[in-house]
């Protein structure tokens, strides 16, 4: 637990993988962050129909494993579905992966990997 405490303190950003509208809205709220120029990394990824799954996976991996300053990863549920196995295998406490609804895809609690874990825990 001691390591996770220290770990948690450094994480002060949110990251988002989503369609253009979700990302725009969340950036408007002010969560967007671009690191210093030499290797300026964005903490958001806009996904559309042309984005292939490998790119999404790479971004997901970057946000969840490589970067240590991200506490919450927001991902549109329909995009999470495209890399479902990746989302399901992410079981670490940090960063938290949160599936959010998008404009065109209403939220479906059945698909949410965390809610599925909740349900499995209680044997429903």
């Amino acid at each position, binding site marked *: 637990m001691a390591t996770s405490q220290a770990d948690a303190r450094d994480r002060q950003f949110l990251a988002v993988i989503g369609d253009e509208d979700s990302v725009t809205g969340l950036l*408007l709220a002010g969560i967007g962050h671009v690191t210093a120029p030499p290797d300026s990394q964005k903490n958001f990824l806009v996904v559309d129909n042309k984005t292939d799954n490998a790119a999404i996976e790479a971004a997901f991996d970057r946000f969840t494993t490589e970067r240590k300053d991200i506490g919450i990863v927001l991902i549109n549920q329909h995009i999470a579905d495209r890399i479902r196995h990746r989302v399901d295998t992410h079981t670490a406490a940090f960063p938290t992966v949160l599936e959010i609804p998008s404009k065109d895809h209403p939220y479906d*609690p059945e698909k949410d990997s965390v809610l599925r874990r909740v349900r499995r825990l209680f044997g429903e």
Partner: protein
Amino acid sequence: MSGAADREAVFPTRQSLGIMKAKLKGAETGHSLLKRKSEALTKSITRRIDEAKRKMGRVMQIASLSLAEVTYAVGGNIGYQIQESTKSARFRIRAKQENVSGVLLPAFEAYQAEGNDDFAMTGLGKGGQQVQRCRETYARAVEALVELASLQTAFVILDEVIKVVNRRVNAIEHVIIPRTENTIKYINSELDELDREEFYRLKKVAAKKQRDNAETDAQMKAKKAEQQRLADSENAEGEQTENTPADILAAEEDEDVIF
């Protein structure tokens, strides 16, 4: 009591019986406490996650509606502009600790960093009001999301804790308690056995003593009878001598009286 039964390696003494009884009591108390703990953990967290997820759905819906308003008011997509003008996060999170029945849970707290406003120019031409409103709506939405994220993190950590607690509960219920009970049974049976042995031994000793007493009694009786007989015969002799009156002094010397 079969010897194959699972029990602890103790000597069957009264002291270890006491220890085992104390242990059983401790195990039962611990079991009920742990069970209550695991129930409390699960109940508190799942209800809150469920509520927060529902709330998130509503909030995100309102937020995307407000974004649609912005798109309409600005008269074009502002996504590209916003993505390009993003530099530094205004909306950040901070982790703090929360204690839920002895488990330290990290919780996120949202805060707004002062001073940087990346979107000062957004909506300057038109739709500024809508943009402002949209930002507020999304800020509220993100706050709800952060809250949900803390719950989710808490759940992931609690999940582990609950598993550990449940494992302990099961271990106590299915291993420690039966084993301790077995040990108590074993000690009791051994002690009973010892008791019976002891009782039998005492009975034996008592019988032996009785026999010895009877023997000595008989011997004493025999001795007494012998003495009686001797005394009688002596008396008889005395009578005979008395019958012939004699001068005691005249008689030859008396035998010495020995006390």
